[in-house]
């Protein structure tokens, strides 16, 4: 009996989740770019409009993997050497949001400035 209840509950949750998920359309969203080279971000300071969802495109021009990590933006993405990846940035209130390359945290640092 408990098995059926929990399976039903799980199924309901998953369906509800899928229904509510609603992916935002990526076309027409402004894109911003940065490249990781020699374990440094270029540009390391990215200005984005406040209160607007944008997409950040990160290119890892190094040979080895790097993890784009930002607690402030709640973003976490591993990019293999030579790989390009995108992340959605949520609408941000005006301010400075630090990010880093977790695998090379002393040199791979940057900020998103929302204004």
């Amino acid at each position, binding site marked *: *009996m*408990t098995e059926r*209840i*929990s399976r039903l*509950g*799980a199924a309901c*949750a*998953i369906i509800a989740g899928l229904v*509510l*998920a*609603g*992916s*935002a359309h*990526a076309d027409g969203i402004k894109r911003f770019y940065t490249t990781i080279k020699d374990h440094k971000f270029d540009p390391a300071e990215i200005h984005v409009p406040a209160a607007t*969802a944008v997409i950040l495109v990160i290119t890892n021009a190094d*040979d*080895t*993997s*790097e*993890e784009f990590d930002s*607690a*402030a*933006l*709640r*973003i*976490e*993405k*591993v*990019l*293999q*050497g030579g*790989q390009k*990846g*995108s*992340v*959605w940035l*949520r*609408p*941000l*209130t005006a301010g400075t949001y630090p990010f880093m390359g*977790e*695998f090379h*945290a*002393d040199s791979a640092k940057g900020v998103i400035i929302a204004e």
Partner: protein
Amino acid sequence: MLATLLIVFREVIEAGIVVGIVLAATKGVKGRGFWVGAGVGVGVLGAGVVALFAREIADLFEGWGQEYFNATILSAAVVMLTWHNIWMASQGQAMAQEARVRALGGAVSAGHRPITALAIVVGVAVLREGTEVVLFLYGIVSAGNSALSVLAGGVLGILAGGALSAIMYLGLAAIPVGALVAVTTGLITLLAAGMASQAVAYLQQAGHFPGMSTALWDSSALLPQNSILGQLLYSLIGYSESPTGAQLTAYLAIILVNIAFIRLIRFLKL
């Protein structure tokens, strides 16, 4: 070597917290060492495989493969943790008897316990953190750093992370048997809630839930998520310095679901 040690230490702690809670929740259950060990082993092997195919996985689903993969395995862990709580709640009398047996030093058969569910949770946690460790170490070594110093940093990181996790487990295991079930049920609920919030964060990173994507607060001045305490609370109870509405909703929803199912089962005396 220090940089390697710190990163490996952090990742091991994140998985170690999950392992510690699972071990505490299965204290006294015969065979749990095998199942938890199997979960760790499969997680480590899986981490190697996922790291090997990290590029291909990330390129799936128009470049959102990594986000969907992480959200899926985290969701599976959430279901397994909730299932365990529900199962524990349904045992009532049987558990009280088990508690008495354990208190007397006896071991309880794992036969009718969904230890496999918790083994899956352990596997997911080890897989997640392990993949990052593998990718990081591979990168460091191929960049020409001394393999020995990387190995030393990695081993020390694992030992230090394991030691801290063991201390946490021993702290939990010292809780008297009567309260242990309640405490582990609570910890498992928060663990599941935190993982659900993480899963939603990955989906939002891929553009989902755009309607609830603004941050509700920013407590980074009070408790930065990257601080030691912040990291511990992130892994333990799903603390986030800047959660979105969707993440908080998932967090609270899982807590409510756990409480509701447990109450429902007790009420129906199943």
